[in-house]
């Protein structure tokens, strides 16, 4: 509504109101909470009450205590592995989708994305029962003769978290890769064929490089979602599957140390921001449009 020269006074008053709201809403409900949160990380707790004196104690504790850094590092490795597994499965599937024609392509894409909308808690529960001692996975492996007897290898440990998160997050990897593959102009592939490249060469030298931005954003997407998840590890991780998200959450529950939890969140946020920036940096598509 920016056409020239015709702003009524009533509309001007309204636009002033809208301006205030447009700035105030995001600031009050997003920026202020995050700022308070950051400030909290410099407080401390003494016998169940929060001490409002600034200190770097929480950060010192995070870096010096022998518990936190290893868990932090292990969690990062875990989430990178989740991202790798998701991409290894999602890339071929997304590529297959782009070989399909018209309606089939989108119908199948939809089919692969619908599970995203399905209740998250229920999925975790179902996956846990599949991975469990009496679950389908063990039954299948025993039936195939790979295992002698049902194993506890897949539940209540790090493996369980890895498998569950991967299963939950595959659709998030499919979509960006599919979109980047779909954006590659057909003429480029025709041109490559025309210049004598084999199908495999065309894939390695044209399709793959041009789809890497999609892979990068898929990886950062999956990584960020995995590292922020504190419910899945709690449900399928048992005692040995201890992740950073769980430690963080416990500071607001059983451990009751909000300031320390806030400091851990800052560490988490920094990793997440790095992952988003990396995804953004490599996810920008270079020259796929002519």
């Amino acid at each position, binding site marked *: 509504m920016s*056409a*020239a*020269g*015709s702003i009524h006074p009533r509309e001007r008053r309204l636009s002033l109101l809208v301006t205030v709201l447009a700035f105030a809403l995001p600031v009050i409900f997003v920026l202020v909470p995050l700022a308070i949160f950051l400030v909290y990380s410099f407080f401390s707790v003494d016998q169940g009450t929060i001490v409002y004196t600034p200190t770097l104690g929480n950060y010192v504790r995070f870096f010096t205590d022998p518990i936190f850094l290893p868990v932090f590092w292990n969690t990062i490795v875990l989430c990178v592995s989740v991202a790798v597994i998701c991409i290894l499965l999602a890339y071929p599937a997304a590529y297959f989708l782009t070989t399909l024609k018209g309606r089939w392509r989108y119908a199948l894409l939809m089919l692969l994305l619908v599970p995203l909308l399905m209740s998250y808690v229920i999925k975790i529960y179902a996956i846990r029962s599949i991975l469990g001692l009496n679950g389908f996975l063990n039954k299948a492996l025993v039936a195939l003769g790979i295992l002698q007897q049902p194993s506890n290898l897949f539940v209540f440990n790090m493996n369980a978290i890895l498998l569950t998160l991967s299963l939950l997050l595959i659709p998030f990897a499919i979509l960006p890769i599919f979109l980047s593959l779909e954006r590659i102009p057909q003429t480029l592939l025709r041109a490559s064929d025309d210049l004598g490249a084999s199908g495999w060469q065309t894939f390695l030298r044209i399709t793959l490089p041009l789809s890497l931005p999609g892979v990068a954003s898929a990886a950062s997407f999956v990584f960020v979602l995995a590292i922020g998840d504190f419910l899945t590890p709690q449900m399928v991780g048992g005692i040995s599957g201890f992740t950073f998200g769980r430690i963080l959450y416990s500071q607001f529950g059983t451990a009751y140390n909000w300031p320390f939890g806030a400091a851990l969140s800052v560490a988490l946020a920094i990793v997440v921001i790095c992952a988003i920036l990396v995804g953004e940096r490599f996810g920008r598509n270079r020259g796929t449009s002519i």
Partner: protein
Amino acid sequence: MNQNTDLLTLRSVSKSYGTVPVLHDIDLSIKDGEFLTVLGPSGSGKTTVLRLIGGLEPLTAGEIRLDGQDISRMPINKRPFNTVFQDYALFPHMTVSGNVGYGLSVRHMKRKEITRRVAEALELVQLGRFADRFPAQLSGGQRQRVALARALICQPRLILLDEPLAALDLELRRQMQEFLKSIQREIKTTFLFVTHDQEEAIGMADRICVMQAGHIRQLGTPHDLYYKPNCEFVARFFGENNLVPGKLGPAQGEQRSIETALGRLVCSISDQPHLKAAPDGASAFAAFRPEALHMADATDSGNSFSGTIADLAFAGSSTVATITTGGDAAQRLRLRMPSRIDGSVLKSGETVSLCFAPHEGHLVLA
């Protein structure tokens, strides 16, 4: 309706976007009932002129007067002008009749009256059968006519058309040109038509205003612009032309000579006082159209010189020869002549004697 009264006057109108000037001190009068075309290459400021008149953009300086009243500050929705947009800007969620009736309905006109006038307007643009279609279901030419009906239903004093034919293919564009012209004659409303296509301008306009780089270069009838361009830009932009640089010689009555690399050429300067007033020795061009140039024979007393035929191009009804003339300042000229069924009389590489009549040549100051 009197073609001699001014409907709209632009006085010293300037426009800048930030610090970038796009229009410099424009003066322009639009006569009541005329079909005025603003012609110029892209970036010449022609669309800006239209947007300023329509009220889509504010002026930076100057004023716009309607019937002598300053309307520069009048809001867009109060101006008695309507626009046909380049992309038609049909409302996609309304039917054809919804689109056409919009201007009446926002003025709270009675539903019955709207229905009647929409039917009339659609009849005028021959789209009566399409009243209940949506824009997405129409062809380009039909959308164009809906946009026109929508603009003229409010009976504006002036209809502004922003390159409305640009998106149509050649055949349809020709039809639409005739159609627009006939509608304009029928409703006797003033049309301001913006285009970059000079053929379109010649075919439709009563007068043409040629713009370049934010300036008006010439305003006149198509005939004037074609035969009496007042500057090098118009002479080159408006149709194919041969321009030969030189220095002005003395004037003799309605003619004046110019010294060029082709020798002394004599050209007409009738009705062009500025050419009569220009000092001897001033830099200028002798300009003559390709169809004015022809093979010299013994009876020719005009401007003659010799040249070599570099290339012959058959273009259907006519054949165009590219001719190089010798000397230090080599010139490339074009000659257009009717094609002949038994082939051209000219041959590539041949040196020929050429001439054009003084009354078919004109002068342009450099």
